[in-house]
């Protein structure tokens, strides 16, 4: 919406189409970048604190020397980010310089441009394309290229291992994710994100909100398949094999330090938000309120979308600190012998269920 409104508004001002387009894109891109930055700080702080509470620890409390990290360690992520920016920028001599420099930005771009189609509330969406969800799934696989470039260019055996594993993992987990989204689109009939959400208003089976997750058991299973393969796409435990700390030192990021490492860190959290965003939009009714009818204004819509997304991110963090790590071949078995067949069965199930119950 906002891009179209901006374009019309500029059109009234004067006749400068190219400049208008650039201005519109800029005006939309900067707040998204700020949102990602602030959200990433909050998510990193959340991860530190939640993981510490789960482990009987206190987490960053800012008890160091001087001002340190604020009251409850609130400034810890800020300090981390600032320190990472100020660190020496090492490019290994034997590394493939251009690819090495480019890799983190491609991984970040993969995550950044997917924000264009995320519906934050009724009208707060950058570009409500009619192929919204298809666009996000296509774009978020750009990150794989960045990871492979990172792994290959740093000319280090560990990062090569990490890159190969992450390539195999992300590419293969896109199949079940896409199949479970097909199950959703069969019900909503439209690919546009706002359209999917509008379809999910009203009641189903009496008291339940008409979210797709409650519409029939097959979409219920499709939600879990989508969410878990989304976790695998962000390389989070139990699928965090590419940056498996105990095996591959630091996986594809072994040779990165300072600012570039911060970008990888940032894009991991951005990816997590995208996966949660899609899961919320496709299955949990986006900005629809749990009790249809009341609290439906755009302001509340933003609140519902963000709280659902944040809850899913909390679940991802929760996964990370409880589950051990799968081995690479077990991971592939789970994907190809487990999720993909079930996702296909879901598609047929949704169709038959839809036909029978109408």
């Amino acid at each position, binding site marked *: 919406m906002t891009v179209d409104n901006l374009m019309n508004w500029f059109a009234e001002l004067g006749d400068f189409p190219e400049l208008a387009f650039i201005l519109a894109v800029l005006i939309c891109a900067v707040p998204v970048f700020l949102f990602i930055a602030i959200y990433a700080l909050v998510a990193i702080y959340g991860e530190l604190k939640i993981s*510490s509470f789960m482990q009987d620890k206190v987490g960053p409390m800012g008890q*160091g*020397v001087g001002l*340190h990290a604020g009251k409850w*360690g609130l400034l810890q992520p800020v300090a*981390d980010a600032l320190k990472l920016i100020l660190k020496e920028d090492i490019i290994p001599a034997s590394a493939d310089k251009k690819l090495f420099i480019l890799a983190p930005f491609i991984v970040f771009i993969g995550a950044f441009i997917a924000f264009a189609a995320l519906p934050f509330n009724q009208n707060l969406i950058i570009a409500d394309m009619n192929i919204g969800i298809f666009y996000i799934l296509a774009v978020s696989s750009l990150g794989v290229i960045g990871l492979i470039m990172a792994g290959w260019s740093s000319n280090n055996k560990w990062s090569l291992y990490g890159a190969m594993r992450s390539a195999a993992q992300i590419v293969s987990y896109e199949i079940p994710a896409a199949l479970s989204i097909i199950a959703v689109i069969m019900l909503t009939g439209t690919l546009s994100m706002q359209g999917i959400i509008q379809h999910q208003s009203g009641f189903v089976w009496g008291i339940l909100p008409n979210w797709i997750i409650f519409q029939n058991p097959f979409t219920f299973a499709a939600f879990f398949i989508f969410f878990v393969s989304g976790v695998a796409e962000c390389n989070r435990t139990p699928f965090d094999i590419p940056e498996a700390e105990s095996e591959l030192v630091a996986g594809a990021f072994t040779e990165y*330090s300072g600012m570039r*490492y911060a970008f990888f860190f940032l894009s991991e959290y951005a990816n997590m938000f995208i996966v949660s965003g899609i899961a919320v939009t496709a299955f949990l009714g986006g900005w629809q309120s749990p009790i249809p009818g009341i609290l439906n204004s755009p302001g509340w819509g933003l609140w519902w979308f963000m709280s659902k997304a944040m809850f899913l991110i909390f679940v991802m963090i929760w996964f990370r600190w409880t589950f051990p790590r799968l081995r690479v071949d077990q991971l592939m078995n789970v994907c190809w012998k487990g999720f993909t067949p079930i996702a296909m069965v879901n598609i047929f199930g949704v169709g038959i269920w839809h036909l029978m119950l109408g």
Partner: protein
Amino acid sequence: MGVLEHKFQDNVVVASMDKLIGWARSTSPWFFQFGLACCAIEMMATAASRHDLMRIGMIPRSSPRQADVMIVAGTVTMKMGLRVKKLYEQMADPKYVISMGSCATSGGPYWQHGYHVLKGVDIVVPVDVYVPGCPPRPEALIEGLLKLQEKIQAERPLTRKSV
């Protein structure tokens, strides 16, 4: 940071920038897991739940590139001394070294008959803070880390060195 290091005249703007940089670096010193011997077990106990290192912002990193502080915890032998030097050189600036335990500081109980023991890690690597003890208690290690944080904050990376 290399280009801007020590290039500016000392005035209020540069001083406050120094304080900000010092604050950032001292608040989140990520330490490099470099456990060699008994002190490594005490370092793990310090990073565990009771004496939590994350309280003072220290997160364990396993790759030298992403770590700021290298805690040499345990006896450095001749065979290992060369590796310590190589790993130190791989760390990104600004990097600091804490020599934890009397073995790393001066060879500890092995100083007299240890033909294979390096008498002190400062032979191969510049050390910032020495933590005495064999093994030092977790509180002693945390006190050493706080000393290091004070030292980082006192650094003035931007102002020109008074020649």
